Structure formats: C-alpha cells, structure tokens
C-alpha cells in the first residue's frame, strides 16, 4: 500500500523547558554552548545522591486556582512551557478559530509522581490525601484540561502514550489530522516529570548511569532520566523556524525492551519518513539520534543510520544535555532539530567524546555551524515503537 504524500506543515512557534533551563532562550543558549543540564537528583524525588538526572532547574509556579484539582508537577511543567506560547496561540486562534486547533500531547509518566505520594500517604494514614484523585492527578490525560483550558483551545484533544516515542508520534497524528481536514492547526508536544517509578524501573533494568550519560561515547555507562516539556504549534500555513516534512513510524516486532540488533525497525522508520516527504538519504544533513547511552541502543541505531545514510552522516545525541525525558523526549528533540535548522548549527553531542569506534557514523563532538536543509529526529521505545520525524528548513 502506498501512503499518501502529505503537505509539509510549518512549525510556527515552539517552546521548551527542561534541565537546561526554564525558558526556550535558556535552553537554546545551553545547546549552543554545550552546557549540560544534568545534575544530582532533587531530594523530593527520593533518590538523592543515587542518581544523576535532568531536573527542572527552578521552582515550578502553581496552577491558577481554577485548575487546583489538576495541580501536579506534571501539569506545572506543561503550563510553564505553554505560557511562552500565549502570543502565537492567540494569533492562531484568531486565524483558524479555537475549535479548529487540535491538542495532541505525548507522555509516559502522566501524574505517576502524584500517585507515589498519594499511595505513601494512604499507607501511613489509611486514606488518600484530600488533594488526590486518580482522574485529575494520575491519569495520562489529566494535563489536557489544563492545556486546553489555559490556552482556550477546543479542537480534538488527546494524549499519545507509547513510552519513549510518545511525543514524536504526536507530529504524525497532527500532520494526518490537518491532511484529513479535521483541524487547521495543532498544538503538539510532550511532557514528563521525574518520579521514583521511572528512576527505579530503569535501575531495575540495570541501564541507569550514576554519572552524566555519554551517548555514543566509548566511555558510556548508561542513561540518565530527565523531565521537561516541549510544545510546537503546527499550522496549515504560516511562517516559522522550520517545517514538519513527514514522519515515519514502525514496530520492531522483536522484543519489548531490546531493539532489533541491526536496527531494522529504526531503519524502516527513517525510510518511511523519507518516502513520506519524497526525499532521498542524500537530502538529509544531520540526524538527531535517539542516543540514550546504552551500548545496545547506540549500536543498533548507529548501524541503522550508517546502513541508510552511509558512515559519514553527522549524528548528534542530545540526551547528555537533558537526560532521557521519556515521554517528552521526542518533542524536545524535534524542537532541538528545528532550532538547529533555524539558527544554522549542529550542537555538540555533549559527553560523546571520545566516540565509540565501533559505531560507524560521524558523531558531532563539538559545535558546528551548518546550514541544514533537512534533518531526522529519532525516537524509539519499549514495545519496539520507532518514530523518525523529518524536519526541514522553511519553504
């Protein structure tokens, strides 16, 4: 079956907050300077001293009183990223109408951090805390009423949750809904918050590094977990830093947590993204790798990139800046790719030097000025879920 060729969709505005900074400007400055946002685990997460994480670097403002029932760390991070986009969203509402703007967000944690506190409270007191409800505190979709309510958006709204590819998938869904004609614009992105469950879960899988992670480096020792949010405004027409060209999705159909050793599913996703945009491998100037920092993941992805693009392809891994933001990683790295295109650079893969000689791609170990025509951002997940988002320069 031939997939339909869909029109590119301009990314007209974007917003980021994560371990590197509370604002897009701070995050961009860190990316240009090769400044990592990783550090010790904050005491409230409960693993202080035991892990390096990408934690939000400042206090998170509480939600307005009308959203008090939804006021979790997760919702606060989403609201922080949303606040920066107030102007562009108002403009888009004026152009398209609030009912014609979809909201599609990705997350893996939802409000699980709130449930950890509530469960412990129940153990101690025999009742859940007053502030907790599974519907408004825990549920993956609990952030939707907050984002839609604060932004005044009324189009189709849903959460995609496919573990670490969640907020890359949202770009595919939005492009399809705009093509379908059910909306003219979409606010897409992802949000995840630090919690014990993910930190101790990855510790149980024995892939957590106590030191800052070093994706694609010969000295790598595993992953760090991060938190944050990234939002992109996609519009049927408009001007912006970059364009969403196409998205390729695939399943490994191999294993729940291990990638296919030759990166078969990863290659399939990248090939489908290129086919969706009508581009060939030579049209792509760099790849923002999933690059988590485990030997298994780095080696499968490196093999897939080298097989498709050749060993000279420039590859950047950015989890040394943010840690692995899980459900927020996909949108964060699409936003990084859009910023790299808009500002004419490829960031240093912080921590990657010295690169692993067994991985046959050109990992960027220092800041490079580069005009990028098109770049791919990869996100891979539990369940063998692979997503490659192809981002291009403005038309």
């Amino acid at each position, binding site marked *: 079956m031939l997939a339909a060729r869909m029109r590119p969709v301009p990314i007209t505005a974007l917003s980021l907050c994560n371990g590197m900074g509370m604002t897009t400007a701070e995050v961009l400055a860190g990316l240009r300077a090769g400044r990592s946002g990783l550090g010790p685990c904050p005491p409230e997460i409960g693993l202080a001293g035991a892990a390096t994480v990408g934690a939000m670097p400042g206090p998170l403002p509480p939600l307005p009183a009308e959203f008090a029932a939804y006021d979790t760390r997760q919702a606060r991070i989403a609201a922080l990223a949303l606040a920066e986009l107030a102007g562009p969203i108002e403009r888009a509402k004026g152009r398209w109408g609030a009912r014609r703007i979809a909201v599609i967000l990705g997350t893996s944690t939802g409000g699980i951090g709130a449930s950890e506190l509530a469960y412990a409270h129940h153990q101690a007191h025999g009742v859940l805390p007053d502030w907790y409800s599974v519907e408004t505190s825990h549920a993956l979709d609990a952030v939707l009423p907050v984002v839609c309510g604060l932004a005044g958006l009324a189009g189709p709204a849903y959460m995609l949750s496919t573990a670490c590819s969640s907020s890359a998938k949202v770009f595919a869904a939005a492009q399809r809904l705009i093509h379908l004609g059910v909306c003219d614009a979409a606010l897409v992105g992802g949000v995840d918050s630090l919690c014990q469950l993910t930190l101790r879960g990855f510790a149980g899988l024995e892939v957590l590094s106590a030191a800052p992670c070093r994706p694609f480096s010969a000295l790598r020792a595993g992953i760090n977990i991060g938190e944050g949010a990234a939002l992109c405004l996609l519009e049927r027409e408009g001007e912006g830093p970059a364009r969403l060209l196409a998205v390729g999705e695939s399943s490994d159909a191999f294993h729940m947590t291990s990638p296919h050793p030759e990166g078969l599913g990863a290659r399939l996703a990248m090939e489908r993204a290129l086919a969706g945009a009508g581009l060939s491998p030579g049209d792509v100037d760099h790849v923002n790798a999933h690059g988590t920092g485990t030997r298994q993941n780095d080696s499968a992805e490196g093999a897939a990139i080298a097989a498709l693009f050749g060993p000279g392809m420039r590859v950047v891994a950015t989890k040394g800046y943010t840690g692995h933001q899980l459900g927020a990683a996909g949108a964060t790295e699409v936003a990084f790719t859009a910023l790299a295109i808009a500002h004419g650079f490829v960031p240093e893969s912080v921590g990657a030097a010295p690169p692993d000689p067994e991985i046959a791609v050109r990992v960027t170990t220092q800041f490079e000025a580069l005009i990028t025509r098109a770049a791919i951002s990869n996100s891979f997940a*539990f369940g063998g879920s692979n997503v490659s988002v192809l981002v291009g320069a403005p038309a």
Partner: protein
Amino acid sequence: MSDGGGISSAERGPERGLGLSLRGLGLWTPGYPDALSWSQRHVRGDRSNEAAPSAPSALGADAPRAELLPPMLRRRTSLLTRMAAEVAAQAIASAGFDRAEVTTIYGSVYGEIRTTLDLLAALQDPAAPLSPTKFHNSVHNTAAGYVSIATQNRRGNAALTAGRSTLAMGLIECAGLIAAGQGPTVLVIAEETLPEPLAAGRSYAPLAAAFALAAAGATDVGAVPGDMSSRTCRLVQASRGDPAVPRLPAALLGNPCALALALCELALQPGAACLSLEPHLPAGGWCIELDARDGAKGPEAAA
C-alpha cells in the same frame, strides 16, 4: 494493496462528516466472550451484573482466550493486554484483514493500572528492586508491543487516551491514518477495573471492544465476513438526528470506555443509528452515524 486513497481531504473539509467503513468487531467483557454473545444478551438474560473478578486467574475458564499471544506470555500478561489481544484478533478475523499489515490503535484511560499499582506498592520499600518485567509491562503501549511481536506486524501503532472522549478520539486518529493511506486500521478500546486504593470506591466491570475500519467505499481490504457485513459510518460534530441512548448493564456504566460496547451494540443491529461519543460534554461533541447495514437485504442479515 490499495484502500481507495483516503476518505477525505483538506480541500473538502469535514463538514459532511468523516466517512469510514466498519468491517468487523471484537468484544470481551465478563460473561460475554464475543460480539455475538453480547448481541444475544437481551434474549438470554444479562450476566454482566454477576461478580466480575479482575485477575485473569480469578476468571478461570471465562478469561479472554487471547490465542494471538504465545501461551507462556498469555499467562504472564495483565487482563488488559489479554482483553486487547482477544478483541483485536476477533476484529481482524471478522474483517478479513491481514494481521501483519493492519495498523492498530489502542485506547484506554487508565491503561495497565493494576501493574502500575503493583509497582507503587513495591516502591514503598526503598531497598526493594523493581521488577523489570512489571516495569516494562506498565507502559500504555504494552498490548501494542506484545501484539506487534506476536503478529510480526512492523507497521506503526499507537496507544492513546482522552479520558471519557477516548472512543471519539480513537476513531478520529483512525480516520487520520486511513486518510493518510495507512489503513486498514483496527481501533482497540480496553479498560480494566480500577484497583483500590486508587479507585476510591469507583467500581465497574472490565471491558474491551475492537472496530476494524477501512476507507469508505474501499472494496479490496478483505472478504466481507458472514457475521457482519460492512457498515458505512460517519464521524460528525453535530448530529442530524437524536443520538441513541444505549441500554448498558449497570455493572458497566461506570467504566470510562463503556461507550465502546454501546457502539458495538448499534453496529450489530441492521438499522441506521447515531451515537453520541462525547455525551459528557455540554456542547455534545462528536457523534457517529451508522447507515443501515450494507447487506441488510442479503443473506448475512437473515443468518
């Protein structure tokens, strides 16, 4: 294989609704192992008010067969994953789709909530390691992963939630996939019971339903099965008629995905019908209109 090149377009817009062809169904809820048994419950008497255990082991012979999954795996997965695999297989078979080439979308509000609760309990001991298996089985796309492996399906898939709008948004996601030429698709809706203490008194039976969908008017997506001929349907934002009020058993009413069974019920009846997919919204939200069964005068309808 072509599915007709999409169901709508940006130029036409969705004013006349998003057209889809419903090709097959899957259903499981305690006491009703498939859509046929569910459709006969008004005749044979309602069994769903009987106590509905939530663990597959407690269900015994009533547990979802989930024959799609390898036996070793079937015993280790949650009721949610087993229900999802069971109804996906039913819908794929009844539509005649190729299980390795279908795109599957999974909708659930609380997902693998019972596995998540096990992990929350384990976290109370700061020294206890978390089970890696439980950890990766707690993600929202657990069933998606296992089913893709079991069927060697390398297409993309997704797991989504939109609270009480999960069925509506799942159908819209499928309409988008079909318009993009990535159909045929199966939408699986599955919801387990909420465990205490998180449930805080909420109680309802588990359920799962699946809808095999293709482009409206497509003819070559698979054989039309004997138990349900295809139905043309449309997702619309304002219905022309009065949406049906489904008669659901009390034990299922609190389930946030109960509307999926109401849609199954309407699809199993031959006449035209309309169902509000977002009755919780003040403005009414999305509805689905079903045309009378395409083969209503044919032999399938008489069977």
